[in-house]
């Protein structure tokens, strides 16, 4: 083997990572060539310095911080948010207020109708039209269910703590 070829293979040889058969050929060359032998010695020394340089030890504080951060990353804090809040907090209150006003208006209208007897006639009209009846019931049900949901805050966990 020529010196140039051996020089390119020396790092693998010194690291004991030569391809099969190559290590013997390099070793044979080194026995006869003092220049390449010196190069191998320098490489061995350099690699020893890399291998043997002392490791740094983590401090207790560093480990503690890493553990806490890792746990938090795995299980984020519980975030409380309403079960239904498409418009946000302000929108919830606005919707609730509007619902209360609608109900108040309905009561006022009912009072007015009952005095004039028009309510009976109106209700008779509604009952005789099924579609109008269904729409009326659905509207009342929606308003009735939205009002307590918007008024009562419910927390929904964003994640869950298990085993912590």
């Amino acid at each position: 083997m020529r010196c140039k070829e051996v020089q390119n293979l020396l790092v693998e040889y010194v690291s004991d990572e030569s391809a099969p058969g190559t290590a013997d050929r390099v070793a044979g060359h080194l026995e006869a060539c003092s220049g390449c032998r010196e190069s191998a010695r320098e490489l061995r020394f350099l690699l020893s310095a890399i291998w043997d340089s002392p490791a740094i030890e983590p401090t207790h504080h560093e480990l503690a911080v890493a553990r806490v951060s890792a746990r938090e990353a795995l299980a984020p804090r519980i975030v409380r948010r309403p079960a239904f809040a498409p418009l946000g907090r302000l929108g919830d209150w606005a919707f609730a207020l509007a619902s209360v006003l609608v109900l108040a208006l309905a009561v006022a209208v009912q009072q007015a109708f009952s005095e004039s007897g028009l309510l009976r006639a109106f209700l008779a009209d509604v009952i005789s039209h099924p579609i109008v009846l269904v729409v009326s019931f659905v509207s009342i049900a929606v308003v009735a269910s939205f009002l307590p949901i918007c008024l009562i805050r419910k927390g929904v966990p964003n994640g869950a703590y298990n085993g912590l």
Partner: protein
Amino acid sequence: MAQAQNGNGRAVDVLVSRHYGSILNFAYRLLGNRDSAADVSQKTFTRVFASAKTFKIGKRFKTWMFAIAANLCRDELRSKASKKEASLEEIQEKAGDAFSAGGTAPDTFDEAADRVFSERIWEKVRSLPEKMAIPLILHYRDGLTFTEISEVMKVPVGSAKSWTFHGIRRLRAEFGGEGFLDLKAEGE
């Protein structure tokens, strides 16, 4: 890792305790600064467990972890304005830091000289291109095989191998040119 994915906090603690030192040393060798290395190490584990659900059981946790650490180190290096060669005083200070962290102080002049020389080597390693420095540290310090390094760096195994050995050759050329290796040989 499977237990950690199920939210087991103790499993998280075990994984952090087991691997934090390796990541810290890897980051320290690459960045040359203890505080930056600790910062990168903490971010590594934060990112590891923030994306724990995406880790497929059966894959190598170690290579996944080192891949995240290597990317964070690259980001840290690129955010620095410039890399400059440290003065001899800074090298001596770092040599002192490394050994005070390890708990031992040099007893003899030779030991102190070895430590300064060791830090000088690491300065040279850090001055290598990232694609050589990273596999060199992973292979010769962290004991990763070239297959594992190829997974960390997402390159072919052959590339990981050639960059590692090329890095060592370049180091040798630089040290040989400065006469360090001759001086050390005389001391032996």
